[in-house]
């Protein structure tokens, strides 16, 4: 963007901020920034949303049950609370799942204790115990998870004790609980953390029977929206890389249990899953790297990273072959489509990774990202993990348990010794590192954390992007303004968009959106030209 553009952006930002009350303005200004050349530019993130501002954000329960645990097929997830939370998180996230070998798949089910007022008054523990028992009796699942909703914490039901006791009682069924009450933290992000903790505590390392293979990895933070994980699974398979577990798209509890047997953790969505990666490194010695399978180039790069890690020419060769093979189709489609998308613009406000990852795909289409930001990102998601030490832990974050993890006395096994790790880093493979969204953003573009509805509208009115990306709540507001809108949580029920095959789907989808004639139907001719030339004999 030009310097003039940058100036305009600054003025625009100040103008729209004017509408806020002073306290809100002060806060929002720190979260709504115009990108400067400064590589150290900072943003405020993971702070409370100003009440009444109309936010995109959801709650802790949504992050825990909805996002992280939702996609695992063979856990019976019981929502402990009034019916709503279970209802809303029932099948609304499009985590595609095929039944595993044992045929277990509870993805299409919603289980709830449907708490009533007497449970609020007298406590819900008895109800919960009975519900867990009924789930066990009817389905005989291998695991039952309990998710606490807002009132549960307040009335003091001890879900963890119940879980432990029921687990012992059943003997053949793992039961564990999540204190993921909606009010915890400031967004879904708290829920991710809680999910990470409990899965790590109650599941990871409980089985040594993982998949065997030469190049064993876990894929972390890939939730198989629209079948993304299927594409990646296939791609890794083709390269000869063994996927021990995915957190948590198309996953099973056994995969989590044995995930510590992998030799590398690859993180897709850093925000939602980096805790597990960190804890696995500490406890079992598995290094982690950031990968991204969104975008053809990003996919190629991520595959090469994995190959580089294993330092086997055979693997590197295979990966290059696969890339070469896949890229043909990608380029053919790009060649057709790019002339129609080149120079078009977009904005992305979503999640904690996608607003970053999807920029890859837009760039491949020659489209410019005018503005982007996360719904529940932290500063490290924007600025990179380097800022972690400087992040002040506030009251809201402090309430989320930070697990104390130590080396497993028996199973800790560093996958790389210090020297080979350093060598790899020198060759450009960064471990435990994420650069964040900020470096992607052009000078003069906007980076906005926890964007408010009002800010979104103003941005659109001012810059009229050709495609806008956000979530379902924004979808029709944006489209009412005549701008095609792509959901990046649900993919608008399309996808997959991961890997090479997914990139092609995406190119076609964006081509459709920017090329559609339907937007030309907006506005009746008489609205455009209100002068009527009536010739009725006499006016009546």
């Amino acid at each position, binding site marked *: 963007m030009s310097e003039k553009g940058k100036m305009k952006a600054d003025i625009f930002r100040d103008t729209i901020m004017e509408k*806020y009350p002073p306290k809100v303005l002060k806060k929002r200004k720190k979260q709504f920034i115009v990108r400067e050349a400064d590589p150290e530019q900072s943003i405020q993130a993971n702070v409370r949303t100003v009440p009444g501002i*109309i936010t995109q954000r959801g709650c*802790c329960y949504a992050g825990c049950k909805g996002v992280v645990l939702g996609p695992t097929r063979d856990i019976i997830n019981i929502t402990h609370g009034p019916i709503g*939370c279970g209802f809303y998180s029932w099948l609304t996230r499009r985590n595609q799942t095929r039944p595993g070998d044992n045929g277990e798949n509870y993805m299409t089910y919603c289980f709830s204790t449907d708490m009533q007022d007497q449970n609020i008054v007298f406590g819900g523990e008895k109800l919960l115990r009975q519900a867990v028992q009924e789930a066990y009796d*009817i389905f005989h699942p291998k695991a039952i998870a309990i998710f606490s909703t*807002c009132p549960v914490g307040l009335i003091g039901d001890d879900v963890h004790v119940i879980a432990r006791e029921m687990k012992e009682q059943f003997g053949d069924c793992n039961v564990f609980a999540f204190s993921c009450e909606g009010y915890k*933290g400031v967004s879904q992000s708290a829920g991710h953390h809680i999910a990470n903790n409990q899965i790590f505590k109650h599941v990871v390392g409980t089985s040594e029977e993982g998949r065997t293979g030469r190049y064993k990895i876990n894929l972390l933070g890939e939730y198989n929206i629209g079948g993304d994980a299927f594409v990646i699974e296939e791609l890794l398979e083709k390269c000869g890389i063994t996927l021990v577990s995915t957190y948590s798209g198309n996953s099973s509890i056994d995969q989590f249990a044995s995930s510590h047997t992998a030799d590398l953790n690859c993180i897709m969505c850093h925000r939602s899953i980096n805790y597990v990666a960190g804890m696995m490194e500490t406890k079992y010695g598995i290094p982690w790297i950031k990968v991204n399978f969104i975008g053809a180039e990003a996919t190629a790069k991520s595959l090469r990273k994995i190959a580089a890690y294993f330092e086997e020419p055979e693997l590197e060769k295979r990966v290059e072959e696969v890339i070469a093979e896949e890229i043909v189709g990608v380029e053919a489609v790009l060649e057709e489509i790019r002339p129609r998308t080149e120079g078009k613009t977009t904005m992305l406000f979503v999640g904690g990774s996608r607003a970053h990852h999807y920029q890859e795909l837009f760039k491949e289409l020659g489209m410019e990202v005018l503005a982007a930001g996360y719904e529940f990102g932290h500063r490290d998601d924007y600025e990179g993990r380097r800022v972690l030490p400087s992040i002040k832990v506030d009251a809201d974050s402090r309430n989320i348990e930070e697990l104390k993890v130590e080396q497993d006395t028996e199973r800790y096994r560093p996958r790389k010794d210090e020297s080979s790790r350093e060598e790899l880093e020198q060759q450009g493979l960064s471990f435990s590192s994420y650069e964040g969204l900020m470096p992607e953003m052009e000078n003069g573009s906007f980076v906005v954390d926890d964007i408010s509805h*009002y800010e979104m509208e103003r941005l659109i009115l001012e810059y009229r992007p050709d495609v806008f990306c956000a979530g379902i709540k924004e*979808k029709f507001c*944006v489209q009412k303004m005549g701008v095609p809108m792509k959901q990046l949580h649900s993919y608008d029920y399309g996808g997959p968009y991961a890997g090479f095959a997914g990139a092609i789907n995406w190119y076609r989808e964006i081509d459709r959106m920017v090329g559609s004639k339907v937007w030309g139907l907006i506005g009746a001719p008489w609205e455009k030209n209100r002068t009527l030339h009536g010739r009725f004999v006499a006016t009546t």
Partner: protein
Amino acid sequence: MLLRHTNAEVAERSALTINPSKTCQPIGAMYASLGIHGCLPHSHGSQGCCAYHRSALTRHYKEPVMAGTSSFTEGASVFGGQANLISALITIFNVYNPDVVAVHTTCLSETIGDDVGQIVKKAIDDGKVPEGKRIIHASTPSYVGSHVTGFSSMCASIARSFCKPSEEKINQINLLPGWVDPADMREIKRILRAMKIPSVVFPDTSGVLDAPMTGVHETFPKGGTTVEELESTGKSFHTFALGSFASEAAARELKKIAAVPFDVMDLPIGIRATDRFLMKLSELTGYPVPDSLTDERGRVVDLITDMQQYLAGKKVALFGDPDQLISLTEFLLDMDLKPIHIVSGTPGKKFAKRMESMLDEVLPGAQYRNGARADLFLLHQWIKNERVDLLIGNSYGKYIARDEDIPFMRMGFPIYDRIGHQYFPSIGYAGAMRIAERILDLFMDRQDRDCPEERFELVM
């Protein structure tokens, strides 16, 4: 199989709800609030509630659903949400400037015991609410009733908040349409216009949740019942409450405040419920039912008599909200269909009473249940025990329909995977026509799909 773990063996459950046929109060309150012109619903609780409700309503209506939240954090949950709500109101009036803010509570704010009325009073007293702006509120704990209850509670709050006592009565009725879709509210207004009966219909989401595409996003679209109209409800001659579950509470409020007498009537789904509605309107106002409506009625009856052979004796399973199910069951019976499995998650004894009176004699095997654990798992099990020819319900029914290969008519809330409900009424004779057409289409499509080639019919 999508629901591969559902078996035919019905085991009584006392604690576990599986695949619910209801959701929680606040979403109903949010929906009702959207039926006031210039109103911003506000969820007093965690921001997840608001996000979930906005998402659910948006998926159902494919429309913007604007609402605020008090964005409770752990602190607010411990120390109370007063600061959050007052802060929210300030922000809302600065940024979005609604005429009305309709606050509903959540399980969280209810559990901690926030007194919203008190907080709002404080906000007003402290001058945080601009002149002429209105804040109304309803108590909608998620652990009581269902989404229908929440709708009812907010309707009652609207009545309570706007209705003024009035000695003078004018030629106007109040009409509470219940939780129906915008097209239904539009249809009710069309009927009242056709009968030339002046009315205040509230809440009225037509023009709000079916707003036209104009290239502009109006935070407050032009639809919705105006404050002025709401304030005139006390002058109305009579109140018609459609559906006791959704509308009776508000009618009682109007009576209490302004002595407006009321009738609670069935939702006018199907012919006879619509007949009773129009007849009562006509009796009470003295205005005749115009020929145009009589003719509409005659056209539906014509259709049903013409096509009766395709309807008679077919078995139906249905689930949804009680007001809808009561009228729909009557309509199905009137068309010689057999509604044999019926569930509603919404509790309330009236449901069973009405079902009993309609079904026990004419369809002795019919099963119906509402309230706790009257869920889709149970319905599906019933279906596995006695197959049906048609399933009617919200989008979640599609999993049962595909597994069991049963024709499926989407009706109720939520419908996430089809359009149409927003635009075509299911109430009144027009709605009856559409319901009959859709059912017939399903049966005929099935016949065309399954019949052997030599029995493939050109004429049906």
